[in-house]
C-alpha cells in the first residue's frame, strides 16, 4: 500500500480482514495523510452516519488498522515502483528497501496546483502559499502565515481556510474566483464565507501581485468568457498574504515511472476493478481522481482493496485471459469518466461510473451512447455542478449493452424541451 492516508488505511483494513498480508508505506511521520490537517467538521456523514472532524475520522481507521495488526512503515519514501511489482523505498532505519508484492495499491493522494502551474504573473515575494500549505502551517505546525489575506480560487480548502484564519483574528479580504460560480461545495460557501461576511468575487482573477519582499497587495480584474482580463475593471486589494486554492492534481509520478498509462484527468487509466494498465497494480482515492469528500475516498479504497484481494487469490500469476475492454469516453460537458474502460466479461457485476461536468447546468440528461450513437442509458437530473462528482452504480446486464459495443460515451446534455407535459 503506497500511502497511509484515508485511502491507504481503508484499503489495507479490508485486505487484512480478508486474511492477506499487507504493508503500508507512509512518507510522513504519522499515519493519516492530509485528513489530519483538516480539523474542521463534516467528515464521516456517509461512512459513520455522524459528523466528525478530519483527525477524528481518520483516527478510527488508524485504530482499526492497528487493532488488526496491519504493518506499516513511517517516514518511508517510495522511490520507485516497477511493472514486476517491486517497490523500492527508503527510510532511516531500514535504509533502502526492496519489497516484492503480489499486488500494489497506489494511494498517494494529490497535490495542490501552484502559482507556477497556473502561470500567474507579477512579483515573487514571500507570502504566497497554497491553501493546503497554509492549513498545515496553522493546524499542524502552529504558525500563522500572515495577517491579512486574499484567497484566489474558491476551492474547498481555500474557503475552509478563510473561516479558519478569521477565527485566528486574521482578516480575509476576499475570495476571488475566475469562474462565474463557486468551485467548491455549496455548504462551504455558506458555512465558511457567507456566515463570516467574507466577500466572494466571481468572474475575477488576480492579474498582478504587488510587493518585492513580502506581498503588499494584489490587483484583481474582471474576466470575460475566455478568462481574458477586461480592461478598466482592475481593483487593488491590500493584503500581506495570498492563498491559492486553484485545484488539485493527482500525484502520479510513481505511477507514470512504473509505466502505467495516465488519463487526461491526471490519474492512472483504470478498469472497473480500479486496476491500472499494469496487472496487479490498483489505484484509489485522490491519486485516481480528486474526490469531494473523504467518505467517498474511503468507499473507493475499500473497493480497490477487495479487488486486490480477489486478484491475489484468483488471478495472480495465472495465465492471462484475453480481456475485451469497452472504453469510456467523456462526451459533451463531461470532464472525465472513471473507469477509463471496463471488462465486458464483468457485466454481471455492478460498475460504479464516476465523472464530473465541465460547467454547471440545470434540467439535464445524463446519457450513455455506444460508438453507433445508440443510447444505452439515460437519467434525468435537476442540476449538475463541477464541484460535485456524479456517481452512477449500474448493472450492465440490465443495461443490455449491444454485442458489438466498443465504447461508451458519457454526455450531459440539456433535457429536450417538452411542449406538452402529460405527467
Amino acid at each position, binding site marked *: 500500500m503506497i500511502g497511509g492516508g484515508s485511502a491507504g488505511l481503508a484499503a489495507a483494513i479490508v485486505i487484512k480482514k480478508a486474511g492477506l498480508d499487507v504493508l503500508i508505506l507512509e512518507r510522513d511521520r504519522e499515519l493519516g495523510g492530509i485528513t489530519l490537517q483538516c480539523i474542521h467538521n463534516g467528515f464521516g456523514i456517509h461512512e459513520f452516519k455522524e459528523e466528525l472532524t478530519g483527525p477524528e475520522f481518520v483516527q478510527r481507521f488508524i485504530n482499526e488498522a492497528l487493532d488488526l495488526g496491519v504493518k506499516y512503515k513511517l517516514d518511508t519514501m517510495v522511490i520507485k515502483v516497477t511493472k514486476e511489482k517491486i517497490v523500492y523505498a527508503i527510510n532511516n532505519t531500514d535504509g533502502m528497501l526492496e519489497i516484492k508484492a503480489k499486488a500494489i495499491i497506489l494511494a498517494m493522494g494529490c497535490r495542490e496546483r501552484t502559482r507556477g502551474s497556473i502561470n500567474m504573473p507579477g512579483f515573487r515575494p514571500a507570502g504566497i502559499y497554497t491553501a493546503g500549505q497554509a492549513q498545515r502551517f496553522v493546524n499542524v505546525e502552529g504558525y500563522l502565515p500572515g495577517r491579512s489575506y486574499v484567497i484566489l480560487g474558491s476551492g474547498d480548502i481555500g474557503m475552509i481556510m478563510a473561516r479558519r484564519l478569521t477565527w485566528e*483574528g486574521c482578516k480575509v479580504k476576499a475570495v476571488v474566483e475566475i469562474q462565474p460560480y463557486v468551485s467548491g461545495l455549496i455548504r462551504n460557501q455558506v458555512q465558511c464565507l457567507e456566515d463570516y461576511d467574507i466577500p466572494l468575487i466571481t468572474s475575477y482573477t488576480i492579474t498582478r501581485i504587488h510587493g518585492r519582499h513580502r506581498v503588499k497587495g494584489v490587483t484583481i480584474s474582471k474576466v470575460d468568457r475566455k478568462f481574458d482580463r477586461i480592461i478598466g475593471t482592475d481593483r487593488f486589494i491590500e493584503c500581506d498574504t495570498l492563498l491559492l486554492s486553484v485545484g488539485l492534481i493527482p500525484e502520479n509520478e510513481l505511477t507514470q515511472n512504473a509505466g502505467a498509462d495516465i488519463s487526461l484527468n491526471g490519474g492512472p487509466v483504470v478498469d472497473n476493478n480500479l486496476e491500472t494498465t499494469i496487472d496487479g497494480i490498483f489505484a484509489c482515492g485522490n491519486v485516481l481522481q480528486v474526490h469531494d469528500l473523504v467518505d467517498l475516498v474511503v468507499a473507493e479504497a475499500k473497493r480497490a482493496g477487495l479487488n486486490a484481494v480477489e486478484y491475489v487469490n484468483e488471478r495472480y500469476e495465472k495465465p492471462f485471459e484475453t480481456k475485451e475492454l469497452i472504453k469510456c469516453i467523456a462526451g459533451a460537458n463531461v470532464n472525465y469518466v472513471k473507469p477509463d474502460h471496463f471488462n465486458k466479461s464483468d457485466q454481471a457485476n455492478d460498475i460504479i461510473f464516476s465523472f464530473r461536468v465541465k460547467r454547471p447546468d440545470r434540467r439535464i440528461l445524463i446519457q450513455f451512447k455506444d460508438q453507433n450513437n445508440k443510447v444505452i442509458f439515460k437519467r434525468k437530473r435537476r442540476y449538475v455542478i463541477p464541484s460535485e462528482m456524479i456517481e452512477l452504480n449500474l448493472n450492465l446486464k440490465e443495461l443490455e449493452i449491444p454485442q458489438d459495443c466498443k465504447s461508451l460515451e458519457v454526455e450531459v446534455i440539456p433535457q429536450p424541451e417538452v411542449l406538452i407535459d402529460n405527467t
Partner: protein
Amino acid sequence: MIYDIIIIGGGVTGCTIARTLSKYDLNICLLEKEADIASGTTKANSGVVHAGYAADRKYIKRNLCIQGNKLYTQAHEELNFPFRRIGSFVVALEDIQIGELEEKRKKGLQDGVPDLELILDKEKIKQMEPNLTDKVVGVLHAPSAGIVSPYEMTHALAENAAMNGVKFFRNQEVIKIRHQEYVFTVKTGEGEFQSNNLINAAGLYASRISKMLGLDYFDIMPRKGQYILFDRNMLHLNKILFPSPTKVSKGILVCPTVHGNTFVGPNAQNIVDLDDLSTTTAGLKEILEGGMKLIPNLPVRSSIRNFAGLRAVPDTMDFIIDNTDVYGFINVAGILSPGLTSCFAIAERVEEFLELLGVEMKVKDDYNPIRPKPERFTNFTREELDKKIKKDPLWARIVCRCETIPEREIINAIHAPVGATTVDGVKFRCRPGMGRCQGGFCRPRVMEILSRELNIPMEEITKRGEDTNIVVGKTKDFILRKLEQEGR
C-alpha cells in the same frame, strides 16, 4: 584591518574574481547587498555557456566569450558544478536566414570557435533534435555550447574562494565610498570596510558604485527577460535552441536545464526600475508564442514556475572592464550576455590589471583549487547509498519529495562555506522547492531544519532576507493580543 582587495558584488562575476584571486597571498573580502550571494542577474538567466560566434567583432565581449567558453572545462573539473556541453542550434525558419548563419559560421571559425557547422539536411537536423519544428530549413550547430546551473556554479566559486581565505559578508549594501591616501573606505548599512584596491562587480548597481567615486562615464540600464520553467520529464531536448537572432537579444530560446527541466525565454524589455522582477501576462504570452515557433509541442500545461531576470545593459553595449582613473579601482560592469560564459576570462583580465597596479601576486603554498563535489542522493549508486545510510540515517530522511532531497543534503548546504541562511538559500544550493510542488510539502520542514541548525526561531526564518518572513506568529497570538488590548 585594511584588505588588499574588496570586491563589491557577489554575483557570478564577483565570485569568479574572488575565486581566481584567492590563489594569491592576499587579504580579500567580498561584499554582497542581498541576504545571499547569486541573488541578482546570476540567479535568473538562461544558464547557457555560449560558443562565441554571436557578438559583433567590434566588442571585447566576443573574444572574452570565446576564451571563457574554453576555460569552463578546467573550472568544471575543479569546482564540480553542474555543467554539460550539449551544443546549440541557431534555427533558421526561412531560407533568407541561411546566409546570415553561414557568415556567423565563417567568422566564428576564424576567431577560434571550434567545430561550427551549418546543417541544411532536414532529416539530419530532426534526428539530432526530434522535437524541432518541421518548418526548420537549416541550423548553425555549435557543439562547444553548454548548459550550466549559474547559481550552483556561483556557490561553488564562493565556497572554493572561502576555503582559500576570501571573507564573504552578506547583507552589506554599499552606501558610500571614500578614497583617501590610497585607501578605500567602503561604508555599508552595517559597517565599514577598508582596502587598497576595490573591484566593482555590482551588476545592475555598478554605475551607482562607480559614481560614488566620481566616475560617471557609463550607465547601466536594466533589461528584463521573462522565463517559464517546465516540469522534468515532460520534454527531452538534446540541444539549446536559439531562433535566428534579432538586434536586442539572442531571441527567445527553448533549452534543457542541467536538472532535466526545460525552459522557454527570455524576451527583452527595457525598463528603468532596478528591482522590477515582475512577470507580466503579455510577457509570458510572448515567450510561449516565441518558444512554440521552435518547439510546437511545448508542454504548456506542465509549467512549474515563471520568473524574470534583469540584464545589466551598459550604454556602450559592451563589457566595461577598466583600470579606472581612480588608482586601485577596477570597474567590471555591464556584464550582460555572454557574461556568464566570459566570467573566467574576465577574471583573468582583472588579474592583469592588479598586476599593473603593482599588487604583489604570489601564489599561496596551500592554495587548493578543488571544491569537492557536493554529495547528492540522486547521484549515489544503490551500494553507496546503503553505506551512507548505515553511517548517517539523515541520508534516508527525504525532505523534498519532488526532487528527492534528504535532510543531510540540506544540512550540508547550511554548513557549507558561505552556506545557506534562508529558505531560498537552501533551495538554490540543493534544490528543495525547485520541483513541481514548489515547496508545498517541504517548506515547513526546510524551515524547521534552518531553525534548528542556525538556532533562530521559526518566525525569523525568511525566504530571502529582510522583510520576507514566511510566518508572522504563532496561532492564537492575534486573538490573545486582541483580548489583552480589550483588557480581558
